[in-house]
């Protein structure tokens, strides 16, 4: 967690020092796309390589699936309603 905060701050400092030309912004965006693709591949590979996880998946996978699905859906609903109310109040 601390390394992420540190790296983020370094990035913010670099970003505030550079002259943000359109060309530079596009380059950053391309790097981000490449990075996201790599990160997701690595996350997927980590899951595929985890034999314990894959073995557990057959027995308790559906329980985890259901918990994840409902907590995600209700979080989305709550945040959407709350931010809509917030936006309306702002106007």
């Amino acid at each position, binding site marked *: 967690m601390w390394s992420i905060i540190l790296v983020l701050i370094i990035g913010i400092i670099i970003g505030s020092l550079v002259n943000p030309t359109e060309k530079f912004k596009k380059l950053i965006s391309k790097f*981000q796309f490449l990075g996201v693709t790599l990160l997701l591949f690595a996350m997927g*590979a980590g899951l*595929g390589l985890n034999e314990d996880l894959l073995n557990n998946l057959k027995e308790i996978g559906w329980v985890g699936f259901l918990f994840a699905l409902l907590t995600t859906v209700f979080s989305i609903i709550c945040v959407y309603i709350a931010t809509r109310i917030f936006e309306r109040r702002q106007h």
Partner: protein
Amino acid sequence: MTLSILISIVVGIICGMTVLPQSIAPHMDLFTTIALNILILFVGIDIGMNKHIFKDVKKHGLLLVIIPLSIVIGSVVGGLVTSMIIDYDTNISLAISAGFGWYSLSGILLTKLDSAEIGAIAFLTNVFREVFAVLSIPFIAKYLNKYTTIAPAGATSMDTMLPIVSRYTNPEIVVISFFNGVVLSSLVPVLVPFFYSLK
């Protein structure tokens, strides 16, 4: 872009199950950490280039409370509904739901508090939550609103999901997303044992 997200993760899973040797499994974590830190650096540069960003966030300061609170409430409700469907103890269900996507920690906490099985369920739940976040963020950004992209990410909105949120929203949302992740990550080690202790 949405398709490329799905392809990256699916190809990763298939490679992990088939061609990649088991010997690289311990190094995957390091690889992910390096990739993530490089990405976060670019996210930081993106934020830094927007001079008014912190003023914008300050104007919407209340969101820094509203969004994490809504995610906690949503996760608790989701956990309660799940406990009714599968007939699990309420305290265990709430503790599993309070992982907010941070699978490593919630898995370890519940293994210690309860059993290896509940720990494994907590781990799986939060792995699935992260996968659902990856898949839903593009659609939420398009059809709901940009703030709501933070909702499925939960505690991971400050690290693994931050680049995804960044990809589909704007630097203001990214700053809120980061703070949301800090708040929820701090709540995981507090709320998991707390919910578990409610009998």
